[in-house]
């Protein structure tokens, strides 16, 4: 059992948890994840470690409630426990002083981009952070990013805050301004990462993405998370989750992530019905979920 030390919402359905896990906190490097089971009969889900403190023995997870398990987790508060936390897993981010490094986070992807931005800064990079959200309330970790990045550009799809447009448009603007960008890290929904890779490809900017395939054990034992990168198959849990964005077959990843869509929606509906959410909100959520999967 792992104790939750702190729990607070950063955005609607996006919750930050500080969890007591001294062993993982001591080991964890940027880009790594843990496998979490909320309850003793729950499913295993991968969650990237957003932050950690080795002295105090905790790690931070930032969770977007999209399915039953993540929504269930988001009902937990400080003092509660989660049943299992295993890790740190995956290959840490490759960090070096590239020069100017752009960290792009879309939605909850910012939570994953944040620790790597910290590491990039520590390695001596000039760090530009682009934070994307549908509306203002979905722009997360701006303060934290401002503490590490040299430049921070929040963007909203509806223009309710910061730059009005997609993160790719902001990136394009920087390129058009003639800024020299040496490295781009893009983490967020699959269409966003694909779009970023498309922007940087013609400019030859090295681009790394963090993939979120379906995982089961998270230790290389099952192959559920296999992805195609440069025509070769890799297991994201041990070979990744970060890969060369210009080589990733995003379409395949998007299709594979749809494998259990029907089942996931049924489980989610059951969960929401049980937890008394209004049906109209429920329908909206399902529509959002479908949109994210596209």
């Amino acid at each position, binding site marked *: 059992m792992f104790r939750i030390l702190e729990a607070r919402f950063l955005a609607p359905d996006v919750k930050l948890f500080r969890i007591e896990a001294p*062993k*993982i906190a001591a*080991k964890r490097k940027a880009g790594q994840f843990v496998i979490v*089971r909320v*309850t003793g*009969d*729950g*499913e*295993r889900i991968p969650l990237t470690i957003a932050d950690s403190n080795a002295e105090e023995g905790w790690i931070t997870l930032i969770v977007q409630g999209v399915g*039953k*398990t993540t929504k269930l987790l988001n009902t937990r508060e400080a003092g509660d426990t989660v*049943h*299992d*936390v*295993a*890790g*740190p*897993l995956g290959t840490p981010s490759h960090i070096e002083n590239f020069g100017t490094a752009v960290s792009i986070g879309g939605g909850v992807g910012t939570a994953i981009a944040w620790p790597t931005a910290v590491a990039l800064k520590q390695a001596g990079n000039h760090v530009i952070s682009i934070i994307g959200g549908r509306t203002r309330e979905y722009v997360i970790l701006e303060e934290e990013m401002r503490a590490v990045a040299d430049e921070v550009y929040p963007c909203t799809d509806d223009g309710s805050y910061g730059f009005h447009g997609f993160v790719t448009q902001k990136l394009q603007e920087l390129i058009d301004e003639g800024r020299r960008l040496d490295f781009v890290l893009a983490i967020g929904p699959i269409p966003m990462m694909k779009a970023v890779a498309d922007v940087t490809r013609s400019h030859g900017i090295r681009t790394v993405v963090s993939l979120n395939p379906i995982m*089961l*054990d998270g*230790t*290389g*034992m*099952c*192959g*559920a998370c*296999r*992805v*195609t990168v440069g025509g070769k*198959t890799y297991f994201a849990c*041990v070979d990744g989750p970060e890969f060369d964005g210009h080589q990733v077959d995003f*379409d*395949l990843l998007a*299709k*594979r992530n*749809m*494998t*259990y869509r029907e*089942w*996931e929606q049924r*489980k989610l509906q059951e969960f929401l019905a049980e937890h008394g959410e209004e049906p109209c909100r429920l329908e909206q959520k399902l529509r959002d979920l479908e949109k994210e999967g596209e």
Partner: protein
Amino acid sequence: MARKLTAKERFQIPRQHMPEQPPEVRACNFEEVNLGFDEDLAVREADRCLQCPKPKCEEGCPVNIKIRDFIALVADRKFDEAAKKIKEDNSLPAICGRVCPQEEQCEAQCIVGKRSDPVAIGHLERFVADYERKRGLMKAEPPTEKSGKRVAIVGSGPAGLSCATDLAKMGHDVVVFEALHELGGVLVYGIPEFRLPKEIVRAEIEQLEKLGVEFVTDAVIGMTDTVEELLTVGGFDAVFLGVGAGLPRFMGIPGENLVGVYSANEFLTRVNLMKAYRPDAETPVLDVAGKNVAVFGGGNTAMDAVRTAKRLGAKRASIIYRRSEAEMPARNEEIKHAKEEGVEFLVLTNPVEFLGDENGWLRAARLQKMELGEPDDSGRRRPVPIEGSEYVMEIDMAVIAIGNGANPMIRKTSPAIEHTKWGTIVADRKTGKTTMKGVFAGGDIVTGGATVILAAGAGRRAALAIDEYLRTGRWEDLGQEEPPAEA
């Protein structure tokens, strides 16, 4: 002593049939297929044993169980003593009695088998182990004298459990680290309930807890702690690596990443460990009710997967294997059971490509007929494609069960532990010693994918060597590496 029967009388007793669930019933449930001997069946079967002066069966057993003696005890209805006799050499008889390939080991050597059917040694082993467990006769008391030495066991599968058992009995403090949230390794994530009820694995683990063994789940050694850290900050005096062969192989053919193509590990883990077969499960598996499922491979894992698919309601569940049935590595009993349950066997057939629809879902496999050519390095005749024999078979789900490689986690994080080019750990076959002082290894991570009993045997041998190392502190460096004994 066994009752006085003449050899002729013994030969006249037919091999006793193991009661089992009828095929049409069991193909719809996940309960154990075999129901086990009762006392009378067991005694009758034991009476078939000739009590050979030089028991060949024992030579056929990878851990040399005193088979003749335990069978004599069964014939005398001393079932509890029979269980103790087996446990002198094998700490997991209830498991091995169910999953060992007896027909290639002890029963292959049985003298009775030269003229008639061999003595059902596996069924008897299972019977006495179940007898002992069900009557609460399993004894485990922590040793009174402790050595003060601490041993870390990495992996809670058959190698780790048997190593832990012996070390704990020798008075060492033993901690078992498991990466998953549940203990048992392949015994819980791989082998299905209908072949090995998990209750049996849990009973074995409870025994170990009574012996004072400590278990830590969610501990991914190599990541959570490295092997070096176990020996330094962890305060362990020795480490045993029994991490198994946990990296599924794929075939490298087009379409293998389509939705609906599973590794056997994934499919079985979803169903066994995560209980996806239950309607209220929190982990999904693709719904195969009324669908066509093809499993590629001819080993026990392939049989487990195809029979699992059948139980999940598959309309058509097929084994597709590139050699002939004679070359299949699976236990005879599994092949027989699969056939009885309606599994189709397409032998001398190999997939060339998986075909998908526009959404990336599997819809068919392009298959090719094979014929057997000259024997290859493994001594088995090599399958050769027949030109122009390709055809398309519609399938909704494919399971790849062609074996496992070694997980790279320890190799990546402990360079001092030498690995072979196959990714397995270089270890002395007798002692399990690796190239790192104080670190031993055994089971599939050394041999490549093999059997439960070989892993358990390696765990026991390593326990002896670890005990000696802990008492003497002597460590001699390893000799030459050997390739894994894998086809």
